[in-house]
């Protein structure tokens, strides 16, 4: 395998990883601050993608489409938090799983109702449709580079938000002791809605960005949601740093496993069975990675040990 192909695949893995980070960051924030496991996070991803596809279809502007995805997902998130999620904070995880599973059913079928079962398509803006040449003679799609850049920028922004701003201080305090910060005069329920909407907006943005590469369809959120779970389990639930490291690990493992494992097996097996064993193992590789991390640290790489 040539070096150029390998570098391309590493970039693909990075692109996949930063997208997973956008999903996982919201999930891990919501879990860390509110102690809530939210299965419906994948639905917010889908809402973002559909909003972007609808607005892009109406206006033809990709920037407006991205804005729409942020606004729609944040609004849907805030609405769901106010109506349903806020009743679940004091419940056990089983109730949270079921209620958010019910939300998935309603979101998916509702979207199918409105938009139909056929996938929508969101076009990459013409200016970004061309590949750009990177040093070393590598040609790589500009749009995917943009995704990596946006993802990394958001990661930096999120770290700054959590570490440096007043809201970030309140969020961290809320993780540590929710009664105490309520006693200090912070409106805790407003803070929760805000955090939930922020997580939702990130998921919606990820949906819109990925929707332009793949198709926009009902049920697109759930595979990503499960990968995001794997990410935060690896990184440690509640840790943004863990979400970033876990997302990059999972993105790279998934992409490189699919490319490297079949030829690796071909070196000592006959070609046809090597490709089937290799591809089966590649699709299992991230779960094997997760099991390995858990054997080593049951609370994830950056999880608190309490």
């Amino acid at each position, binding site marked *: 395998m040539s070096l150029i192909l390998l570098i391309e695949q590493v970039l693909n893995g990075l692109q996949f990883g930063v997208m997973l980070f956008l999903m996982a960051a919201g999930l891990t924030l919501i879990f860390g601050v509110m102690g809530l496991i939210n299965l419906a996070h994948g639905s917010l991803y889908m809402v973002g993608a559909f909003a972007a596809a609808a607005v892009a279809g109406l206006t033809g502007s990709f920037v407006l489409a991205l804005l729409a995805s942020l606004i729609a997902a944040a609004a849907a998130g805030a609405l769901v938090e106010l109506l349903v999620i806020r009743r679940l904070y004091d419940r056990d995880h089983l109730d949270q799983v079921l*209620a958010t*599973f019910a939300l998935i059913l309603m979101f998916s079928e509702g979207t*199918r109702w409105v938009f139909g079962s056929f996938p929508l398509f969101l076009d990459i803006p013409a200016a970004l449709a061309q590949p750009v040449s990177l040093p070393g003679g590598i040609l790589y799609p500009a749009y995917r580079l943009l995704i990596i850049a946006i993802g990394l920028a958001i990661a930096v922004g999120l770290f700054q938000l959590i570490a440096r701003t007043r809201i970030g201080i309140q969020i961290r305090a809320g993780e540590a002791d929710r009664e105490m910060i309520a006693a200090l005069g912070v409106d805790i329920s407003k803070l929760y809605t805000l955090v939930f909407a922020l997580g939702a907006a990130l998921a919606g943005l990820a949906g819109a960005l990925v929707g332009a590469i793949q198709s926009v369809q009902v049920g697109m959120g759930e595979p990503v949601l499960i990968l995001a779970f794997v990410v935060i*389990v690896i990184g440690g639930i509640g840790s943004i740093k863990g979400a970033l490291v876990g997302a990059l690990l999972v993105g790279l493992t998934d992409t490189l496993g699919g490319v490297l494992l079949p030829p690796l097996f071909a070196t000592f097996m006959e070609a046809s069975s090597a490709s089937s064993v290799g591809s089966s193992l590649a699709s299992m590789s991230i*779960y094997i990675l997760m099991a390995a991390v858990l054997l080593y640290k049951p609370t994830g790489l950056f999880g608190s040990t309490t």
Partner: protein
Amino acid sequence: MIQRETLINWALFALLPATALIALWMDEPFIITLATKVAILALAGVGLNIALGLGGLVSLGHAAFFGIGGYAMGILASHAQSYAPLMQTPVLIEGTTSMPVIWLVAILASALAALAIGALSLRTTGVYFIMITLAFGQMLYYFAISWPAYGGEDGLSIYVRNGFPGLNTLDPIQFFAVAFVVLAAVLFFAGRLARAPFGLALAAARQNPERVETVGLAPYRLRLVAFVLSGAVTGLAGALFADLNRFVSPTMFSWQMSGEIMIFVILGGVGRLFGPVAGAALFILLEHVLGGLSDYWHVYLGGLLLLVVLFARGGMIGLAAGREVAHD
């Protein structure tokens, strides 16, 4: 209170064969098939309920065992169908179309998988456990899709339903009888299990693991045994479900399947012996009533589930019984 629940339980239990017999009398084989589906899905729920209700283990990956049971049936029957032995060295293993043999293989295979998955997952608790069981289920799902030998994404069709000695399983009412008797036997077993020393210790480990440890029992081991039993029962249900449809596909492994099995348990009432029977019956009923009204019946199902979770804790059977024990 207990007496009333027992009464409800027996009524529920009698309703299933009564429905099948009335359908037989009215010559409605489709209804018999629906009743069979309820019995089989209830069986899967009874399996999950051992882990979820008794052990407090919120597993969102039970489709893994359901699918393994299904594929145990699919693989054995497909080899019997093509007369190609499953394995020649070191011992000759051939396919089979005998239900009892298939059940045994399904139970053993899913118990083994539950042992491996449980041993890893039970190192964690709470929300980690939920996510990890979900992830292991997904892992098997993707494995089933990408493994081409047994149909891959398309699944496997079995042309003739497997046989049970002395019965004609292609006759809907006879296959219903098989499924119902299996369900009854497992319910009896699960009811005994809950009152046996093991079941009491398991329930205690859910409520207060520290105390259980103090009296010299290991919660991890109790939970692992419960998880294995639970997986084995769900695997048996998977084998029967595959026989009902004469078809297995990776969807049996999908996480929606895990969610649905969980819905049966919750709609009926967590930790209640007959809860899954009530839940599965209600689910299939809703599927046919609401599914006839609208193609988008999942919206209503979601709404109903949400209402049950938010306002009717303890499910249908438990509507009057007050708060259940916390499960995390």
